[in-house]
């Protein structure tokens, strides 16, 4: 099963390499990874998605918790949560295609953020499956390039991950 693990990490050089190294070392797979500083300059927030059965995920979270620089950790997929990913996608857009792509982008609440005679660059935000549905709708044959941020996630309601 897919899990979204969200970590508050000391904002120290080398901290990220310990997290990533742990995954490589123990044979765990990182599907997506995003990391950025938080409102507290001493902390980074890291979100990663990974796959595994309950036993594996339990080991992953325990091993992550053992890292000295991991301050707090939550498996967001254990509860109600919001997840978002941002995608920038370049698609072939010529002739009649241009209007069709624009319409499809509107349906998915995407924005065309750059235009050239033959190419649209579209920005799209949503859960991973929405981004994948958009690619499917456009037709994979039209896609020239994609770049995705990986999943960011946060709990719903009043639950917060903080010190």
């Amino acid at each position, binding site marked *: 099963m897919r899990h979204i693990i969200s970590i508050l990490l000391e904002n120290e050089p080398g901290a990220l390499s310990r997290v990533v190294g742990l995954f490589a070392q123990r044979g765990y797979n990182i599907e997506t990874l995003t990391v950025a500083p938080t409102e507290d300059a001493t902390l980074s927030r890291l979100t990663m998605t990974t796959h595994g059965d309950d036993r594996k995920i339990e*080991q992953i979270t325990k*091993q992550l*918790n053992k890292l000295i620089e991991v301050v707090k950790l939550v498996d967001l997929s254990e509860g109600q949560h919001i997840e978002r990913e941002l995608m920038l996608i370049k698609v072939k857009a010529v002739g009649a295609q241009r209007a069709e792509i624009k319409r499809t982008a509107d349906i998915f609440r995407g924005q065309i953020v750059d235009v050239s005679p033959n190419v649209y660059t579209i920005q799209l935000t949503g859960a991973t499956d929405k981004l994948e549905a958009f690619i499917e709708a456009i037709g994979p044959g039209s896609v020239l390039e994609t770049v995705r941020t990986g999943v960011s996630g946060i709990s719903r309601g009043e639950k917060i991950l903080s010190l």
Partner: protein
Amino acid sequence: MELLSGGEMLVRALHEAGVEYIYGYPGGSLLHVYDALYRQSAVKHVLVRHEQAAAHMADGYARATGKPGVVMVTSGPGATNTITGIATAFTDSIPMVIISGQVMSHLVGDDAFQETDMLGVSRPVVKHSFSVRRPEEIPELVAKAFYIASTGRPGPVLIDIPKDMTMPNERYEYAYPKKVKLRSYTPPQRGHSGQIKKAVELLLKAKRPVIYSGGGVVIDGSSDKLRALVDRLNFPCTSTLMGLGAYPGTADRFLGMLGMHGTYEANMVMHHSDVILAVGARFDDRVTNATSKFCPDAKIIHIDIDPSSISKTITADVPIVGPVGTVLDEMMALLDEAGEVPDADAISAWWKQINEWRPRHGMRFDKNENGLMKPQEVIEAMWAATNGDAYVTSDVGQHQMFAAQYYKFDKPNRWINSGGLGTMGFGFPAAMGIKLNFPDHHVVCVTGEGSIQMNIQEMSTCLQYGIPVKILCLNNGSLGMVRQWQDMNYEGRHSHSYMESLPDFVKLAEAYGHVGIQVKTRDELPQALEDALVKYKDRLVFLDVAVDPEEHVYPMQVPQGSMRDMWLSKTERT
């Protein structure tokens, strides 16, 4: 407030952290620090001949005393040479602090002379690591390193120090922190009371219980508490390789070691048990054999300070995360409070069964009437000669297993071996680290002619510092454990397990300024041991003892089998 240079601060901070000996090797990036060492006398330095040995010396010291051992090495090759030693300590949860030099900060990343990304190279085998970025943070980082290394599940912590952090002319206010606090590191202080209560209830109901004790008991200094619990409940006790000595090896309730080369009775008891109390042990693959066939009837209570050890390979029914000592205290208190005792009839029937199992193998071996000695009898003779009270280190292979099986350790911290990583070359420097700190005790390194050659250069260090360890080399002219597996699984094809062109170890010991004694027959052994321990008490003695290369270590669990599936000899299987 005193003004000190970075190098001086480092040495002073090590002293304040309680360090008496540093094991190390100087080099360019650490010259300022070595100069600071030279100008004081509180912290002593032992110059090894290879940096790997420095790490093993510090490790041996740590295993015998429970305090972190300290290693100091220069950047690049000096640092990378310690990796095997750091990994050895990491795998066995041994506290260690490694100071590694680094090139000047402005050269980092330029592939400078003797530059290695030591933080990167060591990352998978340290508990934590620091890089010094401002000289004034050195005392705090030293304090943090010792705190992290020695608390929770202990382990090695590395401090990487660029040379410009130690400049002699740049001085800073020195203050060693009285207390260390890390917001993201809070090792557990006690176990969950509800879980402990459940565990005690389960123990009181058990009909075929066993206590499976591991290295965590030794590390936590909780042997007395383990002994009290075992004796109070009258349960059988077995131990991992790392836990030997926590419960007395000569006591009747002790079943011997369990696992791959465990005793017949220990493995049978585990397999047939209904409740297993695992204390500071981690269900390692050398213990469990095939996990799917592991102890089918047993409910498992697992005490460990590291939550990731629990339910990693074997699922625990009652997991208890906490320091072994406080959890055992709480269990005892609950037993006192309840005033209940285990089912006496069931326990007595269980002991009857156990005592029927005991003679089946009985750690027997057949002596050669006229031929070479068996390695087991050499260990037995050494046990007798040292009254079972020596610090015994070992390298890795058959000799290690024979020492574990036949030297009955009655005290904790006396059996010093690389259990998890299996590092050849560990035993001799580890023995040196112990002897230096316990000069009045016998310290014997049990080794083989293969392993000893992996750090044999340290005989030179022993001469320089007067470290009279005893090397008991079980010389069978081959890499015994490799050869045993080749005999058992490769139809006796001894691919590269034969040691040709062995040196004359007696002459080699003499060349290094020590005493060498060759032992070829049984008759010579007692005198040789006495000479080594008494006549040459203050000399390093290399005992080169010829033993039978055909001997195998038994019992040996059958691969992919259950705990009870064992070879008991070359021809007898359970």
